[in-house]
């Protein structure tokens, strides 16, 4: 799954997710990718979030909506992401999840559970993306 968040030069924000889901799924199964608030979520007044992981479980928690609302209430992107992942971990200790979170000013962070997660970012005058590794909580 790819989830991406963009901020334009004028500060507009958008988010997108695309996936072909889980292998060997029961035909008709849909994961969390296309679910607003789970695959990704963005509110230009606050920030955005993109996710990947065990979609069957994640869509029950809407982690990206949670992360954005966490930022609305003052958390930093990293703390907001970690809180959203911890909420899922508490009920499903083996859940594999990865979240990237950015606020409207370009401050960003990430959190993951039960796998080593990576994310890519690029901004301003960077000529190449930077890939960051995130250790699981």
């Amino acid at each position: 799954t790819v989830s991406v968040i963009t901020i334009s030069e004028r500060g507009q924000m958008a988010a997108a997710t695309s996936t072909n889901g889980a292998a060997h799924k029961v035909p008709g199964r849909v994961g969390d990718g296309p679910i607003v608030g789970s695959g990704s979520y963005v509110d230009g007044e606050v920030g955005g979030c993109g996710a990947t992981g065990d979609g069957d479980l994640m869509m029950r928690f809407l982690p990206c909506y949670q992360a954005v609302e966490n930022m609305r209430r003052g958390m930093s992107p990293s703390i907001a992401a970690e809180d959203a992942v911890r909420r899922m971990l508490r009920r499903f200790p083996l859940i594999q999840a990865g979240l990237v979170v950015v606020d409207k000013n370009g401050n960003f962070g990430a959190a993951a559970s039960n796998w080593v997660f990576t994310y890519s970012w690029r901004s301003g005058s960077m000529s190449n993306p930077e890939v960051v590794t995130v250790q699981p909580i």
Partner: protein
Amino acid sequence: CATLPFVINTWGGPFTVTTDAAFVALKSSATALDAAEAGASACEVSQCDGTVGYGGSPDERCETTLDALIMDGTTMNAGAVAGLRRVKNAIGVARRVLEDTQHTLLVGDHATAFALEKGFLEVDLATDESRSICYAWKENNCQPNFRVGFGSESCPSIESYTPDFPPIKHNTPIITHSFPQSHD
């Protein structure tokens, strides 16, 4: 903290095609929405690590279906497709749902019908690689699977999906992936 424009996306490695495509779009004054679509689309075309786009994650009947979502942070408008069949550019169809309807999510064959109405091409999303992954899975008694209490005796009864139109021979190079554990 980063200066604008700004892009962040899940995963590194092959997924940096998304970062670059979205960033290049932003640098050429595309809107955030166009850039997000461009980024996701780049991953659909290149398949990234096999979990995005055609030819990946075959279901029990060896069919690949696609899910996509796009959201505008300024208007909070969103468009999504789930279980999209036989159309490659899932994020493009999701964008059309956002722009051309008041809905948020279209699913399955009806999402495909909407896509065809919008001029998207109908193709077989399975590839030789995804089919061989699926057949190998069946050879392995359909393990692992998402069923509860699924006895291996039920495995052979899962017949394969055959597209109801002649598969188009892909001339794109077959990218061999080692698929990670099954997730979204």
